[in-house]
């Protein structure tokens, strides 16, 4: 197996996903196939090849430091599942 059930559980936790045993079971088989296919990449020698993260050369895009209109707070909060008019409300952290 390319990836064990425990590894899937660990990665799911990192990604804040809760997977049932059945989901892990079916995902394990699928991931095995996908990661097995991706291993194709190791056929290619890439020693010294620079990685590409962006296909076009883009440098830092700066703008003038001028205040422009932004979203009013009530608009920004409007889609929050729970909010108190000033902030998003979430379950207690500590």
């Amino acid at each position, binding site marked *: 197996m390319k*990836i064990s059930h425990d*590894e*899937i559980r660990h*990665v*799911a*936790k*990192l*990604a*804040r*996903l*809760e*997977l049932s045993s059945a*989901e892990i079971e079916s*995902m394990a088989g*699928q*991931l095995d*196939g*996908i*990661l097995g*296919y*991706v*291993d*194709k*990449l*190791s*056929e*290619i020698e*890439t020693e010294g*090849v*620079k*990685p*590409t*993260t*962006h*296909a*076009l050369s*883009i440098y830092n*895009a700066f*703008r003038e430091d001028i205040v422009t209109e932004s*979203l009013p707070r009530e*608009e*920004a909060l*409007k*889609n*929050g*599942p*729970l909010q108190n008019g000033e902030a*998003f409300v*979430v*379950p*207690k*952290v500590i």
Partner: protein
Amino acid sequence: MELYNLPIHSLEKMLTEGDISSVELTAAVFDRIDQVEGKISAYITLDRENAQLAAKRADEKIAAGEGGGLCGIPLSIKDAICTKGLKTTGGSKILEPFVPPYDATVIAKLKEQGAVILGKVSMDEFAMGSSNENCAFGIPKNPWNLEHICGGSSGGSAASVAASECIASLGSDTGGSVRQPASHCSVVGLKPTYGRVSRFGLLAFASSLDQIGPLSKDVRDSAIMLNAIGGYDPKDSTSINKEMPDYTAALTDGLQGMKIGIPKEYFTDALDPEVRAAVDNGIKLLQGAGGEVVDLSLPHTEYGVAAYYIIAPAEASSNLARYDGVKYGFREKESESLAEMYSKTRSQGFGDEVKRRIIIGTYALSSGYYDAYYKKASQVRTLIVEDYQKAFSQCDILVSPVTPGPAWKLGEKIADPLSMYLSDVLTISTNLAGLPGISVPCGFSSKGLPIGFQIQASHFEEEKLFKAAYNLEQQLDLQPKYPTL
């Protein structure tokens, strides 16, 4: 001829000359939607009231002599593109209640021109899929054969154009998501150069690959749409400040002096023979129009899918971290701790394919695997980019099929994600290299399923795409133009 079957450029003339009004046209398209939507399921949300208001405003603009272009033209929009005050779900349960407080830049541009937005169309959840079966709100059908997929992820866009439930549409293309459904539905689909069109307000899937593009009834409409949505946007730091030509000026007869590259890796034995025959016929027509054929090689093509299915999920796993039940969308309300709320919200809100890709992406970026997966894939991406650079030193455009075969049957590949991923083999490299690509209808299989012809060009050479695509379309004069519904 029914109004809803006409392209933008015909309707534009009729609108500005006063033969029809946008109110009439919009009503005709809604009648068409009422007639066929039950079979197609292209739309997630219809916005009749605002569409009618927009049509009235467009008629006023036209009366004031400020019409033309997209003024008064009814369009559908992929549900990945934010529309102020109009629900934008991304095809996901996690965003079901989301009403954007702002317009994507492309939407602001369309509204500025007076375009009429009919509603939001179906897509694979967060644009992850090639069949539009990964949608939380129903699966659109292929208008040419209702038992087949319409393609994805911009499936609702392609189906709504093919079924004349809109005049044109906007989709987005991360690995073929505009070109592939366009090919399966016999419409024109354009993926512009990375940075040509602003991504501001597009729900992010894989930020280094995503690009918004139009789906339309013909090549001229595609050029009109790019004229309307393209250009630099300070709100998108990856948009590129480069002059916008009038793309319709490229639509001239004859391809004298144009070198047409045939990449041998795109013509393998895996191609369906009917697809191969239709594309070969297309190449002959381009030659007949004056183009000169050059045989060449893109040796790393076969590694594109493997590189893509590391890079795209890696970027997605990071982009989709924002869906946590705090700022918008669905929240699981029973949880007592924040961490529990995050994971319950995400587990209940995301569908299987999205979860799968988040897991792959997180795994590929995780400590100990980064070099073997993400770094390796990014290096292979460089080799793919270099292949293209060599190819474009020998030719102006690259031509190929869009997909190895016509649209498959609904349900056929849904249980086998890898087989679905492999169907993207001919469109994925374009995105990895940030190039423009277009899909133009070029025939039908013996079962009546559409076949598309793909053209790729170097960065910012959309004019060459349009010119070649226009010549193919004119020479071919493909029939039938519309499915029987």
